[in-house]
């Protein structure tokens, strides 16, 4: 349904490309404009076979499905006028960029210029800290964003250093927030004819997700790191089992059901029933639980617990996900080329006809430069020789 919505994607890295992936997976026509040598994520390890190859980065393969790739050096005069020509011809609803504050302004690709070329185009600028404020020119990597947005201070063991959370959670969240702003503008663009500039900060996007936690200050307390414990109350934490790890939780089913699950009559004692006083008996309860847990496999534990209305979970790995009955049953995955990708987390009817793998570097140069912009073969050859494309 988004097939007549075009997006020009100038972004690199993780957050920007993840934002435009959400749009391209919904069917939008995303034209990825890369520097002639390829954007930075093409050189992100690991590669799926052999040596450094801009078309074989696994991260890139995930982040760029259903997009077209053209090469173009925005920082050359010819490249600069070519991208303006592209904006004029494609009439995108959106341009997404992640060069950092003021970079596009300096080369005359600021929001006002874009507006003068095409009035309804919105610009989304994604940066680590936003385009204003004292930190605007700071550099950051995944860990630094997790640190400054508060997530690290509550992740890890209380007596050890704060810990980074798994996956590129901060950058992907930032891309997710940017995609929300994109959908908002696309929705608005259906009724208004004037574009908007959106300033997305990864630090703020992540803090927004944490805000519930932040309100701990109402009690005037610092939020603690809990390590393997998930929340106050017991048990609500990770324990090893025979083939991995499970998260144990004694609700909403009853304590007796937990004792029954763990085949441990000694656990079924009345003094353990009350949630608030149960932590006092940790030393008696824990050995009985771990005894059973370490003899059973994570999936059996999980299903057995769920049958007794106990909200356990287990620590899945990639294989567990790919083999999951639940995900297969829901048609969660998409097959793209030879591989299985996670599906869009929300599916709208008829969003996309056929999924396409991430594009090779400059794969669509001919289609865009020749067929769409009408450049001659010679023009394209000379632009290529001058390394503009």
């Amino acid at each position, binding site marked *: 349904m988004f097939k007549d919505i075009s997006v020009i994607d100038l972004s690199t890295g993780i957050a920007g490309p993840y934002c435009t992936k959400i749009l391209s997976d919904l069917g939008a026509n995303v034209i990825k404009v890369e520097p002639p040598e390829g954007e930075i994520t093409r050189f992100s390890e690991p590669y799926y076979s052999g040596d450094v190859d801009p078309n074989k980065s696994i991260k890139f393969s995930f982040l760029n499905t259903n997009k077209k790739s053209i090469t173009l050096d925005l920082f050359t005069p010819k490249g600069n006028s070519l991208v303006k020509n592209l904006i004029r011809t494609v009439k995108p609803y959106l341009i997404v960029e992640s060069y950092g504050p003021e970079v596009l302004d300096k080369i005359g690709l600021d929001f006002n210029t874009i507006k003068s070329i095409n009035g309804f185009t919105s610009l989304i600028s994604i940066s680590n800290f936003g385009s204003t404020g004292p930190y605007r020119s700071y550099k950051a990597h995944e860990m630094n964003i997790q640190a400054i947005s508060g997530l690290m201070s509550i992740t890890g063991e209380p007596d050890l250093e704060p*810990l980074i959370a798994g*996956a590129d959670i901060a950058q992907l969240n930032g891309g997710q927030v940017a995609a929300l702003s994109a959908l908002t503008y696309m929705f608005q663009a259906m009724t208004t004819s004037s574009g908007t500039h959106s300033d997305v900060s990864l630090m703020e996007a992540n803090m927004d997700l*944490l805000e519930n936690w*932040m309100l701990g200050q109402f009690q005037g307390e610092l939020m603690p790191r809990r390590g393997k414990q998930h929340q106050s109350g017991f048990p609500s934490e990770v324990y090893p089992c025979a083939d991995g790890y499970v998260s144990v939780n004694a609700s909403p089913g009853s304590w007796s059901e937990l004792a029954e699950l763990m085949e441990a009559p000694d656990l079924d004692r009345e003094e353990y029933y009350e949630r608030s006083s149960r932590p006092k008996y940790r030393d008696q309860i824990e050995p009985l639980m771990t005894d059973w847990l370490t003899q059973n496999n994570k999936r059996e534990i999980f299903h057995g617990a769920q049958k007794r209305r106990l909200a356990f979970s287990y620590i899945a790995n990639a294989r567990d996900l790919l083999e999951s009955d639940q995900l297969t049953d829901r048609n969660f995955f998409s097959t793209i080329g030879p591989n299985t990708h996670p599906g869009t987390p929300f599916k709208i009817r008829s969003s996309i006809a056929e999924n396409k793998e991430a594009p090779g570097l400059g794969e669509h140069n001919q289609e865009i430069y020749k067929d769409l912009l009408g450049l001659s073969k010679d023009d394209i050859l000379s632009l290529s020789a001058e390394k503009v494309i």
Partner: protein
Amino acid sequence: MTLALEDIRVVDLSRIWAGPYGTKLLADMGAEIVKIEALDRLDPHRGAVRPQAGTGNYPDGEPGDDPWNRNGWFNSLHQNKYGITLDLSHPQGKDVFRELIAMSDVVIENFRRGVLDKLGFTYEELKKIRPDIVVVSMPAFGNTGVWKDYIQYGIGQEQLAGVDSMGGYSVAEGPIKSGINHGDPITGSHAAGAILAALMYRRRTGKSVLIDLSQLDSSISLMGEHLLDFQMRGQNPTTTGNQHDSFAPQGVFPCLGEDEWVAISVTSDSEWLNLTKAIGFSDLGEDIKYADSSLRKQNESELLSLIGEWTKTRDKFDITSTLQSSGIPCAPVMTNEDIYDDPHYQSRSLMEISDHPSTDIQLLPGVGWKMSKTTSEIRWHAPMLGQHNEFIFGELVGLSSDFIANLIDEGVSGTEPVGA
């Protein structure tokens, strides 16, 4: 200034975090959210009606006379929303609910699977009332699949989604969950996106849409490259603690003060040279032992202790400004207190003030992005229980004051909770 989404009306039956976060995102951009609670089943984030000492999340730890209006968990997720009370199991409540649906664009719920159906409001029934309605249903595992009746909350989803297989100090020490229940806000954010996409679809086709959202599916969106990696190279994701798997050194270092830390990442050779100069170890920069990333990786533990020696007598904010001025990615590990005091957050006016009759001034974070043309601000505080009953029932739905008074007499609506 106009609001981006001011023409959208959402009937919001969602509770706790995931659903309310999704509708908060829409409310902040101007959508009209009508949150419905039952007097005997408040949003659990309002806390207990008569809370035990030390529980809940109240200003200064004081529950006060109306704790359900004072709980921070609730008040941070419901600004800019209308709040009404309505018993959907009562025939009159059902009638009023039907009238509301007829004039709304979206219904969102995150009950356990089947709860709304049992109340008589299946998707088919909702479509009869409003043929182009957008319905978002978001039980823990979605409405289909073999786990559809399993119980889970945001707290247990990142484990099942594989994210926690990458969390922890080391493989040997086992996985550690992130400090937040990420399954909730990520699903809420997807709900907001799905609603916008569905409304665009509806505008083009005139058709109704059912969105079946699963917290598990949402949480796996963070795992894409790792699923591919397993298929392409047969490798399951793992953890490298606070160190990065390709560049070095990266770590979290102790600073002056109790439990104060700074996160430093050296992602290139030039950043390494700059770091050695900035911390007064220029000779290290010339040492062949540390000349490139893979060499630094091999010798990372000794570099981490050297840097830690330098950081431990310094303030985390001073370190950050020193290293950032040398072009090195560095950030303080901020606590909740630090965030409220932070000049950058303040300058981008993230902390907006909202005066709430029952709690005085609250500081709340703003919206996750800044828009040039439309505003997104806190226009009013989270509703007191049933605060907007008269406005919604009277002015919006057009019920008579006698009818509304009768609803209250019958216990179908009101402003005082029932039960514990």
